[in-house]
């Protein structure tokens, strides 16, 4: 019985973590290409949420398609208007720019779509249907989240490793100047990166809104914070690292929340962020980097042992 409960917590935590893995991936992509920590990423989720609200009567598929198109468009537009002019500037200038964009979009939403009574998107009933598999409650939404997250991670990997534009993007992440010298078009690559983050944001937005249901002008802030911090503990420099970090933090937050005694459960974020500080001190370049270092240390030791045995 206790084992089943623990596994239940595990299932929730994993589906929660998968969501943040996808989101951290989008953040890491921009960070890699142009050292931008994009605070306005959360507002893409907000834009997507309201698009879903206004298209909710069109049926599931049109709603999803329109949401994706709108979010990708806003994402690319954001780059053209706000980030292109400051691209040479220091990372902190980029950061404040993204904050200004985020703040501006929030205020624009306050003045227009978020006015009046609280809006919400009602989740489709079939999404909350639960299956009982081996004693675990598993909703369709959990399954969908995991499938979409896995699909996006695999898709991203293929896109980055197998396509020309993906290779150009990775080259730009490594060394932007050099990439341009060998004929890669900087503007195109960066626009493309923003389009991809828009796509990822749209996916996260749809899954997130179907989960929580409620909309507000500042709804993007909390998921952004978690994904952002998660990405940083995984290592924003690499896509795998960021996804791993986002996943880890999602899982950790969910696990802390369900394992703390009731009178302490309000302190979840406090414990989660203490965990973040500890991880950062142990592995300032991210969990992935730490794993690699440990792995190479272990293999070197083993190699030495082998040689001694021989």
């Amino acid at each position, binding site marked *: 019985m206790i084992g089943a409960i623990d596994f239940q917590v595990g299932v929730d935590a994993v589906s929660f973590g998968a969501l943040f893995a996808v989101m951290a991936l989008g953040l890491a992509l921009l960070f890699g290409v142009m050292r931008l920590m994009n605070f306005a990423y959360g507002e893409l989720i907000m834009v997507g949420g309201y698009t879903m609200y206004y298209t909710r009567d069109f049926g599931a598929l049109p709603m999803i398609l329109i949401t994706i198109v709108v979010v990708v468009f806003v994402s690319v537009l954001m780059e053209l208007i706000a980030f292109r002019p400051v691209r040479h500037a220091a990372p902190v200038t980029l950061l*404040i720019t993204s904050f200004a964009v985020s703040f501006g979009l929030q205020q624009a939403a306050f003045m227009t779509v978020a006015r009046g009574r609280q809006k919400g998107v009602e989740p489709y009933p079939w999404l909350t249907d639960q299956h009982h598999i081996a004693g675990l409650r598993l909703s369709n939404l959990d399954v969908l989240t995991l499938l979409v997250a896995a699909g996006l991670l695999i898709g991203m990997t293929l896109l980055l490793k197998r396509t020309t534009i993906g290779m150009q993007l990775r080259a730009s992440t490594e060394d*932007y100047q050099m990439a341009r010298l060998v004929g890669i078009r900087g503007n195109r690559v960066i626009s493309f990166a923003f389009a991809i983050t828009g796509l990822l944001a749209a996916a996260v937005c749809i899954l997130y809104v179907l989960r929580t249901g409620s909309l507000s002008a500042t709804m993007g802030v909390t998921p952004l914070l978690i994904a952002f911090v998660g990405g940083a503990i995984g290592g924003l420099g690499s896509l795998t690292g960021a996804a791993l970090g986002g996943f880890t933090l999602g899982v950790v937050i969910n696990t802390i929340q369900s394992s703390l005694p009731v009178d302490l459960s309000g302190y979840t974020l406090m414990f989660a*962020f*203490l965990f*973040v500080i500890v991880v*950062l*001190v142990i592995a300032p370049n991210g969990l992935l980097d730490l794993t690699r270092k440990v792995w190479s240390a272990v293999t070197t030791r083993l190699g030495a042992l082998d040689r001694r045995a021989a």
Partner: protein
Amino acid sequence: MSSAVALGRRYLRAAWTPIVLSAVIVLTWAIVEYADSVTLEEDVMRLFLWMLLVLAWQLFSGNSGVMSFGHVAFMAAGAYFSALLTMSPTLKEINFADMPEFLASWIQPAELGLFASMLAAGALAAVLAAIFGIAVARLAGIAAAIATLAILVIMFTFIVQTPSVTGGSDVLVGVPRETTPGNVAIALVVIIFAVYAFKQSRHGMRLRASRENQEAAQSVAVNVRLERYIAFVIAGLICGVAGALYAHYFSGFAAADFYFELTFIVVAMLVVGGMQSVAGAVVGTYFLTIVYLTARRGEVDGVFGMEPPSGTANLLVAIALLLVLILRPNGITGGREVPWPGALRRRGPVAASAAGTVPEEVKEAIAAGPSRPDAAPASGADATTPTSGEPL
């Protein structure tokens, strides 16, 4: 005789920036006292209190190049601690009946004045900064930024979830209103001189060296971690004092006052003004405060008889912020201090870039050179590389 004059000139020149900035502060204070308007006083108080924070940020982030999102947490600690120490004991007995005994035994009967509680707030903030600083000083770039962000979230969660000590997420009321524009103006002048002196001190110099090139600084025996730690704790102390002044001006405040919104306002002010100079901190605070408060006045009172929808002011601030960053990516001052008038006359405005010694002028010119907007390729169609090693 002439040597005495020369000596006086030297001292005046060395302290030129803080003197000019203090004069601006005192002038603003004089205007408030003369105008005798409640709304103006409130606006200027906001400006002054923000500026205290921006100066603390300049001291740590401006000199070290390590971005902090966490110092508002130390301000919150200072605000709550000083409020608890100055509120009337009877009020505390009612509102904080279930405060743990080890705190209640000395906090409940305490009834300090503003100055004593300010010192206590600064001390608590410095102690907290000293604890968290151990972790932050080991980090650089994005990891440090995230760690400080974590401090902010930890402090906020603690305050909201511990109503027996802090009143939770409710507004804490009944703090004696003792802060006056004069108090804050004096504190500001002292802190402007202190922050500038720190920047010019050997610690500030080492820290700035580590900002420009950490490896090179380490190679000449600069203990980067130690220098960052010192600056982090001093900035925490200033934030604690600012918190005490804040608490005793608004007399009622809530945990949400000390969270992301305030953090971003302060960071934006510093970046807009120019992170690397004390003058930048002051200019940035004036600029954004004036834009923000003017826009808000316009929103509340209406412009040309029109009633702009609520939120217009904040939207305008965001747009103004974007415009400044696009036009002047290194901030309004570009990281320069107040130019010495003689230098302006003799060598033209370009040579007046720094008020400091010659090596610093050279260093700053080198540092500012390649990233200056007018130095960017004229084509402008494409970007130069964002330098990957640049600290955040």
